[in-house]
């Protein structure tokens, strides 16, 4: 029997989306997680709750508000359309934006707890040795928090790869632009092409499983050591 034809475009698009999302998240989740770990502000609980919202909200709710926000009349989509001529809804950039919100807790929370366990002492020590805050962050804090970074990257990546509801609402189903792997699976099932659905689903399942095994085993075996 011939192997059924697999369309690789959705897979490639999913990987791109997850990669870009994680990169962006690392940049802006780091200061956010640092702030959460060290602030004494009373707004901390509010910010924590907002960050955790995507964990509990149905993706359709998030997707619905994203669609409005990113559309031609939305707070974000409107200005973008005025600048570039097209809104963010039903575009790859829109997917990235939505994913950054959707996957935020998966990146912020591991970083938050990593920064908490590193504590303030290494920062104060580095500063007393003449390092500015930024210098201390890169030379001392981030190496000591590297388990947190590994977990954040892997969870953020895997979670973005697996998102469905938000993507469907915000991105629609445009081949090559917004049709990611989870939507491709949905499409295959709809037209009763179970073989292709199986291959894609099993692939995603296996990938997610392997990634989690890797994270847990590395976390166990990665004591902070001299490099």
């Amino acid at each position, binding site marked *: 029997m011939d192997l059924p034809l697999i369309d690789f475009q959705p897979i490639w698009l999913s990987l791109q989306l997850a990669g870009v999302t994680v990169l962006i998240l690392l940049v802006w989740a780091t200061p956010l997680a640092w702030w959460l770990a060290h602030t004494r502000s009373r707004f901390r609980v509010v910010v924590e709750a907002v960050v955790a919202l995507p964990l509990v909200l149905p993706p359709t709710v998030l997707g619905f508000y994203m669609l409005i926000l990113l559309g031609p009349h939305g707070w974000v989509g409107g200005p973008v359309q005025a600048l570039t001529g097209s809104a963010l809804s039903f575009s790859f950039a829109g997917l990235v934006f939505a994913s950054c919100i959707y996957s935020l807790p998966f990146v912020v929370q591991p970083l938050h707890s990593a920064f908490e366990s590193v504590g303030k002492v*290494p920062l104060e020590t580095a*500063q007393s*040795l*003449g*390092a500015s805050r930024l210098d201390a962050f890169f030379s001392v804090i981030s190496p000591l928090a590297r388990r947190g970074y590994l977990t954040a990257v892997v969870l953020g990546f895997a979670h973005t790869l697996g998102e469905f509801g938000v993507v469907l609402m915000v991105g629609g189903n445009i081949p090559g632009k917004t049709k990611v792997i989870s939507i491709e699976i949905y499409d295959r099932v709809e037209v009763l092409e179970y073989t292709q659905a199986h291959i894609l689903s099993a692939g995603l399942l296996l990938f997610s499983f392997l990634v989690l095994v890797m994270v847990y085993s590395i976390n166990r075996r990665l004591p902070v050591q001299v490099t």
Partner: protein
Amino acid sequence: MKNLLEAKFRMNYPGFNLDVELNLPAKGVTVVFGPSGSGKTTLLRCLSGLERAPSGILKLADQVWQDEGIFIPIHQRKVGLVFQESRLFPHLSIQQNLLYGYQRTQSVERNLHLDEVVEVLGLAALLKRAPDKLSGGEKQRVAIGRALLTSPKLLLMDEPLASLDMQRKAEIIPFIKRIEDEFKTPIIYVTHSVDEVLQLVDTMVILQAGKVANFGPVQEVFSDVQLREVLGEEQLGAVLETSVAGHDEEFELTRLDFMGQTLNVPKQNIDVGQNLRVHIHSKDVSLSTAPPAGVTSVLNILQAKVAKIGTLGGYSVDIELDAGRPILATITRKSLANLNLKPGQPVYAHIKAIKMVH
């Protein structure tokens, strides 16, 4: 250029206030001494810049670190910090730890280099190792070296020996003395250990409940009868500077000269003419108004005058004697009544034990 450290801090926390004003010589070792909770660590955090006391003042020699509208952040202050825990960076080797601050010090400001510090602190064999492979004493020496390599204007040490056993302490104290001798870095040293005070310092500051209770040369501060509250019964006593006058080979004793009078101690391996600091606990001093009639087993009897009689209360009382330098004696209130002591009265101080400080 005046060589002074001038500090004024006021911090209010729930249940604790720090209110400190200090003018210290910015050389040698100054100990900040006090019971736990007296504000020693808070004072050190203010001095280092880890904490910003509102409207505080901090000047070291000709530099202003904090004043109205001025606050130099810690990483620009050039202060070395050493804590009870070594706080070495676990992801860096010993050499990388040592060089962390050195590399962040401008080359024109570097007056200490790796080789010298490694030599003085005996770190050569450790350089390639990881911090978790070192003993507590070794880690502490590395931490001191790392702080020194930033060529600090001031070295702040917060109970640096508290987590070490006696042997390790004895191993590090000479290094701290050498820092003072060789690198001329002024050190402020926080501790609640009387032994460390006696071995290290010239000037001490006593903190109590967030306030400076006393400060000055160690001999003067230690003879303050008010110190009982801070030091406790066991440690209260005078610190005397003596010099070795001679050795008695037959009885294996060393004679110490103290302001023209003689003290005998078990034979010390110290040359004649060398100085020796001794600590005489007040509970080891008893008094008589007349010279001992006949023979006594007490070898060391000093002539002195009653200077001050401490606060009465309980069964005992602390008496400050003037023997050229102050000496403290703790006697019972009943003995005070029997002897009928008055300030100015000549007495004989019988000293039952003398502790040498090396």
